[in-house]
């Protein structure tokens, strides 16, 4: 009798444990219509897309209370946002070093989800580098990878690929290879005898007027810059022939990062402007390469040593103006036109900016640690405050137009 009771108890316990649901309850929701914009934010432990039709409306955008779309699972590290490109409502990500994937916000009965719709498998480490955004069409995007290139010591070149990807089926239409020369001298390690295999990173890439331009950052195996000169490479496009390295010692090495942010811009006349580090530590300067020339313009140097330049994605705004966070500059006259930090009373921080209809949109973090979207009107040189973003987020990476 007692044994029967015991077995009954055990069976009941097993039944109770077995009957537990294997997943959380996800209720159905009213399917939202596709929104106009998404704001890519990060918290201490996750990444979220906040969708809205009105970025300039006085409203609060927040992932709290199960709003927005959780993309943490697709993006283990929040700063991978720096390797993402959003175009035509699609998100192109390279977040694990193997794949270049095309994502989309997809409606389900339970709400919006972030779903991969296609991908391309790279054979070796791949992270999205610089975009040639002016070539982006509904069918093709053009870009480089971040890959720090090891030199081909026989040919004395670094190879940098430019990929042309068919976005309809995520296949490569073609690949162009820029062959960038190594430095014309040997770098040694601290022992003075061992040759240091110098590495190259491309911090900017622009294509226009039949030329391709690359900002060059040479560094050694200790991650130290090997030369405090600014280097850039120019070659014919699309033949990639007639390559030439130019250097300038009026400033220090080129500024930038191997991520998506482009540290150069082209004006309306296809003159290239390149952000470099200044001669004084912690400062910046701008050099120019005039359209059709193969050397830096000796008559142009914009020393920004008196300004707290934050770098980031440089953008040509038109009307003779460019944006170097947080400043809007008059490029030709080497003047500060606007300081968005002063005008907004905060710190513009968006990694990749949205420019549309004569306006620049950026997220600003105020001294009170609040986040707002601001609209800067390029023509009128004015700012306007838009939606508030939850002060609990730690970073706002992108403001993207989806439609």
């Amino acid at each position, binding site marked *: 009798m007692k044994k029967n009771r015991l077995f009954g108890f055990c069976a009941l316990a097993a039944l109770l444990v077995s009957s537990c649901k294997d997943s959380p309850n996800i209720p159905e929701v009213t399917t939202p219509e596709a929104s106009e914009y998404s704001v890519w934010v990060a918290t*201490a432990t996750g990444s979220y897309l906040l969708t809205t039709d009105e970025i300039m409306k006085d409203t609060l955008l927040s992932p709290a209370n*199960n709003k927005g779309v*959780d*993309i943490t699972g697709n993006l283990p*590290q929040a700063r991978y946002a720096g390797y993402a490109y959003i175009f035509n409502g699609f998100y192109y990500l390279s977040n694990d070093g*193997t794949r270049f994937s095309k994502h989309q916000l997809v409606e389900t009965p339970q*709400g919006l989800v972030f779903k991969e719709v296609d991908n391309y498998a790279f054979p*070796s480490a791949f992270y999205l580098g610089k975009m040639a955004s002016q070539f982006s069409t509904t069918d093709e995007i053009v870009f480089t990878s971040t890959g720090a290139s090891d030199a081909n010591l026989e040919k004395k070149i670094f190879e940098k690929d430019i990929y042309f990807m068919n976005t309809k089926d995520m296949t490569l239409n073609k690949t162009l290879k820029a062959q960038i020369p190594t430095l014309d001298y040997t770098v040694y390690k601290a022992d003075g005898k061992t040759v240091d295999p110098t590495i190259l990173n491309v911090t900017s890439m622009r294509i226009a007027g039949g030329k391709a331009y690359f900002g060059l950052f040479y560094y050694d195996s200790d991650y130290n810059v090997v030369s405090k000169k600014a280097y850039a490479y120019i070659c014919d496009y699309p033949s990639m022939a007639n390559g030439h390295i130019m250097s300038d010692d009026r400033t220090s090495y080129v500024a930038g990062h191997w991520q998506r942010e482009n540290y150069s811009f082209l004006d309306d006349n296809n003159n290239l402007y390149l952000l470099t580090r200044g001669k004084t530590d912690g400062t910046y300067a701008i050099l120019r390469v005039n359209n059709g020339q193969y050397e830096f313009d000796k008559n142009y140097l914009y020393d920004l040593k008196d300004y707290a330049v934050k770098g980031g994605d440089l953008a040509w705004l038109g009307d003779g103006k460019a944006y170097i966070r947080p400043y809007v500059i008059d490029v030709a006259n080497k003047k500060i036109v606007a300081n968005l930090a002063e005008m907004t009373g905060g710190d513009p921080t968006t990694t990749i900016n949205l420019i549309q209809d004569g306006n620049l949109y950026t997220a600003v973090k105020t001294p*009170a640690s609040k986040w707002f979207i601001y609209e800067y009107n390029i023509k009128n040189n004015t700012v306007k405050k838009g939606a508030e973003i939850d*002060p609990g987020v730690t970073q706002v990476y992108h403001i993207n137009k989806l439609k």
Partner: protein
Amino acid sequence: MLKSTYIFFISLFFVTTIAQAQTSLSGYVKDLFGKGVEGATVTIVGTNQRTSTDVDGFYKLQIEGKQLPKLEVTSVGYITQSAVLKSNETYRDFQLKKDERVLEVANVRGQTDNQRRVNEIKRSGFNVSVIDMNRYANQTANVSQILRTAPGVTIREDGGLGSNFVFRINGLAAKIYIDGVPMDDFGPAMSINNIPVNLVDRVEIYKGVVPAFLGSDALGGAVNIITKQRNRHFLDLSYSYGSFNTHQASLVGMYTNPKSKLSVRTNAFYNYSDNDYKMYTEEKYGVILEKEINNKFVKIDEARRFKDRYYSTMGQIEVGLRDKSWADQFFVGLTYSGNNKQNQLGATINKPYGGNWTESAYMMPTLSYKKQNFLVDRLYADIYANYGFEIKRNRDTAQYNYQWDGVPITNTTGNASNPEKYIKDNINSVLGRINLNYDFDESRNQSLNLNYNISTNDRQTYDVISDHDDSGLPKNMVKHIAGLAWQSQWFDKRLVANLAFKYYGIDTYQKIDEREFDDNNQYLSGDIVTQTRYLGYKGYSVAARYRIFKDGGVKFSAERAYNLPEMTAIYGDNFNVLPNWDLKPEKSDNLNGGFYYNTFFNENHFINFDLSGFYRLAKDYQNTRIVSDNGQDKFQYYNIPGVKIYGGSFEARYGYKDVITAAINGSYDRAIDNQKYTDETNQQVSLSYGYQIPNRPWVYGNLDLGFAQNDWFSKGSRTQINWTTLYTKWFYLSDSHLGSLASKNYIPTQLVHNLLVSYSWNRNRYNISGEARNIFDERSYDNFRLQKPGRAFYVKFRVSLL
């Protein structure tokens, strides 16, 4: 080859020794529930011949003369039993009944060290569970598989045999010790994930406050793994084979010369597994396996893990003297361990590696000394020291990215290959420990315990591929932990209290190369900068147990404790864990309470019930996150400024003689982000404040049912069937309240069932067992969707010679 020769000679040595003693009378003294009675006196009536049983309840006597002797077995707390031996009878077992007139087994002189410790643990104010690992000796399990069945224990793993793990008790970091020595000091091959159960006598799990003698900087608790040590000769050999080409062998042995008291003891194990278990695509859990076709990842339903092989080996020999006037035990030892682990996955399931592995070789000489009545009466000294040297290599030789069908992705675009990686570490470590315990009286009503631990760890790193010598930049850590504890017993031992004070010190040191050179590598500026940091903290604790009635009582403990970061957490491991020099020690104020009830009824039935609860307020809670490093997902330790954890657990056990055992337990631990502001000045409230910390189990439990029968098929045999079920409730991988529920990833509820059937004969000398794990092939995940092994079968053969 060397290993097998070593095993052969050791085996021969023990077998020969045992064969010479076969004329003696031996047997086991056990209680009605089949548990060995330690310290029972076995006497040949009418003579002076007597002996005491050891921790297994084993005894051995020489028979003089030809008359049939009468044996008498006495033990405090049990009814005396006697028996007349039959002619030519060389062994006799006894089963003792409890003496209900004795309230509690008294702590008397003459107890063995082991028994004294067990009784001390049981009676202390600490919230402790003791797992008798001899019960599991016939399983192919390693220590972690048994540990995870204890209430309040979570072990996060990322794969099969030899995989990395994170161990927590009641939600906070817990430290693991082997015979009181931190497990980290035994090299990477010694881990709860690969120590076979056969090497272990028992495991003590301390929840909350940890006794000072462990010299621990644990917060949630500690585990002390006690290896098998006996005064007599014995040899235990086992070998198992199972799914995924898994081989596990172990050897434990001991020999003591009765005259000279010279003792030799040895432990060894070998583990090997291909770990090539099946993985499955489960889209609803965000797990998608793919292979590449024409440079496109295409979903596949299943794939076997590949290039995830693991093997480890360990050999330990200790030689010393016992029972000398100047030492109860004095041993010198040498431990060698080595392992080789292919790493198919990093921190996530996203990217399989095809040529990544870690290997290490570790050598450790040891010295240990134990003495009761050291210098003065009732002063017990336990002194231990070791020096460890390890060479560790992290390598990655895969030129191209891999996919789940085990081949590299086709390079159709002429992409540059991935660079080879080869990082070599030389690690030196030293551990010194002294533990002194003074009893103010024979009844041990008042005791003082003083403990001091010092450990140093020094690492030098070389990048072999680039011939880059980082060794000029050593990384070093020294930890000091000192504890003073006062244990007292009051009201006829109804109240036991332990008051302790602890000091924690951590001294870290690193060098950073900040030199700059010009184009011709001429020195420009900067220097190699030395960063040092010393942090010291004071902690205190109180633990008490009050026996309310004969079979039950309450326990309470409170403490302020610190968890000092490990070497890997601060300096990384040059493979899967990135450094974080800014990592701070974790502080926690803890409260623990509990109720226990143990009773027997009708002599043959045993019931045990434990209920406990806890509340922890942690500052700088150490957690791991995923961080990108040159294209690979890696772990990094970081501090969560404030965390509140509360919860409880229960466990109920039932036993009927040595025939039926049943146990069920459940745990609930909820960790809440307690850091209110992201910006203290502006008082901006954090989005996570007041919400549960994601990616951690919070409801889990276990069921264990056992049935055993003696003397089936042959006299002296025992057949055992065990069924275990492990349960973990689903949990989100990111904050549960952020983002739509449809877009969130979670680890699903898991219910894993295991079945064990074992048969031992010739009085447990030989044993064969079969084990089916995860019988229903449940999808079992952990840590960012890393899938664990599915259904697996193992057989094990074991020989235990006494």
